[in-house]
């Protein structure tokens, strides 16, 4: 399952990142790493963009980027 398949309010644990180095570095600098918990805060219309909460940080992602984050719902 990938992050973009989740819905508003869902909680999940990050399992794996399928991103290239640039994107993975970016993910890492926000603490988006395997083993971390995420909560879906809001999705824009048509789910183009997703807002997630990870720790105390709120991050906006596009669907394309959320597709690269494998998660397991908790």
């Amino acid at each position: 399952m990938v992050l973009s398949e989740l819905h508003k309010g869902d909680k999940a644990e990050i399992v794996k990142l399928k991103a290239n180095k640039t994107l993975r570095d970016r993910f890492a600098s926000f603490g988006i790493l395997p083993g971390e918990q995420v909560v879906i805060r809001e999705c824009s219309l048509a789910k183009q963009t997703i807002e997630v909460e990870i720790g105390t940080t709120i991050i906006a992602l596009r669907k394309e980027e959320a597709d690269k984050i494998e998660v397991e719902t908790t």
Partner: protein
Amino acid sequence: MKKIKVALAGQPNVGKSSLVNAISDARLKVGNFSGVTVDKTEVEFVYHDPRQDADYEIHIIDLPGAYSLTDYTIEEKVTKQFLRNDDYDIIVNVVDATNLQRNLLLTTQLMETGRKMIVVLNMMDEAQKEGIEIDAEQLARILGVPVIKASAAQGEGIDALKSAMVEVYEKPQTTAKVIYSDVIEEEIARIVAFLEEKHYRSPIPYRQLAVRLLQEDTDWYKQMHDEPIWIEILPILREGLQHIYLHSETKDLDAIFADEHFAFAKGAKMEVMALHSMRAKNPTQKIDKLLINKFLGIPLFLFFMWALFQLTFTLGAVPMDWIDAGFGWLGEQAHALLGDGILGQVVADGIIAGVGAVVMFLPNILILFLGIALLETTGYMARVAFLLDGFFHKFGLHGKSFIPLVTGFGCTVPAYMAARTLKNERERLITLFILGFMSCGARLPIYVLFAGAFFGQGQAGNILFLIYISGALLGLVMAKMLKTFVFKGEEEPFVMEMPKYRWPSWRLIWHTVYGQALSYLKKAGTFILAASILVWFASNYPRSEAIASTYAARIEHAATPEQKQHLQNEEISAQLEQSYLGRIGKATEPFFAPLGFDWRMSVALEAGLAAKEVVVSTLGVLYAQGDSADEQNGGLIAALRNNISLPAAIAFIVFVMIYLPCFAASAVFTREAGGWKYLVYLFFFTTGTAWVMALLAYHITRVIVGV
């Protein structure tokens, strides 16, 4: 006196600028980092340290906000390069106490630079409100560096920071120590032991060198490559790395160390932070529920923008009248003092009238910039990017493109610079090319003038809104075309932080608005003034004596005062037509004729290439002269209404909306886009579009109003 050079580093939105502002008695210097146009703020002050009983000159360089030391954004690149290559004594790392774990990630990377360091736990007051308690002493023990609790907003912790700077400066070397997982620590120990045995002369501590080697740091490999010890250390390294790979799923050292940094940051946070009260919802979450709501978010945003433009127009009108009256009085005084000769004309009709036209619109510009500064400092701007990315993405832009685009409504110059936040070259260029369609503050006077003249004051606000929106929409369509036909390629990933909503710092907003107003006035004072005088000169010279004498004779024989008046106006008009300005306008008239523009409008547009403010002052000089003899015809507005048809006026607005921005903006564009050839493209792109759209507007309006 000893000099301490401090590099101030931290993630975005941690209050670094507030901290710099909170240091009183400091000399502030604003500039750019060399080579790039990222803002660089420096402060200098003298601190007397009681323990050392000595004065220190402390020089702080505020580095751009960086989430980590990567090349992801231009800001991160600048920070990384500065920390690596520049000359400085200590790093002061500002950390947001309400967001400790993520901030400590950067701290870990900074500690690995091997420089002397201090951590400032900023926003302690906010953390306390959120029920977060941090054991600063314990954190200092874990990190091995001093940790100062501070609140830049309240001015707390500044003195402690100053004294810590001296203390750390006087230490021989850093005490910072990142602790890694057991496997890596084991390998570090093995390498360190070997270096010790060999009594290797290392410029940096052995532990640091070992870490660099395990990270496969290219610079250090190069440096050690030529030394005899290299062949001996190589097998140890190879074996060590194999050992590390065995314990992780990947052989990617960047990923392995990213995990290590994260684990260290997380571990440190767990040990020092306690959460006392868990509030169900913080204000940010409550506000977000509304502002980024799937259905309400975008209408609310549009409402805010609409309100901003209405406010700009209605509230701005009040001081505008005062300024108008003030400059009118000044002009009369100049005429009275200097007479109606050439000097009087230059000062009153050229200089004072020109500058007056510019200053008059300062209130509008101030309100607009204030609104934009508010959007930025409260954290709403990032929400707008979130709301709009789905939309902008379709046009080949990025949610972040919104930020330069909105800045473009203020001034195109900073907007071109703001486009740097876009990392992807293609998205950045598309944004740069369509930025001019976002009507800047300097075009506002032209719209206000025309909207007021042709639609009346009551409708002007709505017309203005329509102009701005249609310019923006045209920009989007053009972006899509550029994306499809010109710039093809890979897209920039969209991963951005949504900062907490914060009350704006009035001090910071004041600085922004004041700076913008000052730069607008500076432009008005020099560039535009010069252009106004040039336009005044070109419209008065050469004077034809033949026309003068013909009219003098006819005026003398005029029967009624009305006839006399009429002849006088005719004379001025005739003189203008054969002036330099008139000749230029005449020469280019055929180009503008299909749009319904006369030579005066053509001239005004051409003068507007220098600066958009000049369009209004040119029209002022060109038309106000004709009716300066007629008291009943009060003002430029009436002159325009009498001389220009509605379709031509609308075509004129459309042309102004689209064509090339001012000289200053064009120069910045050239630099940002990366070459003069882009300016040539931009010139043809905008002029072509402007001409076609104005032609359409002209004919459509003609059909509608039935002229």
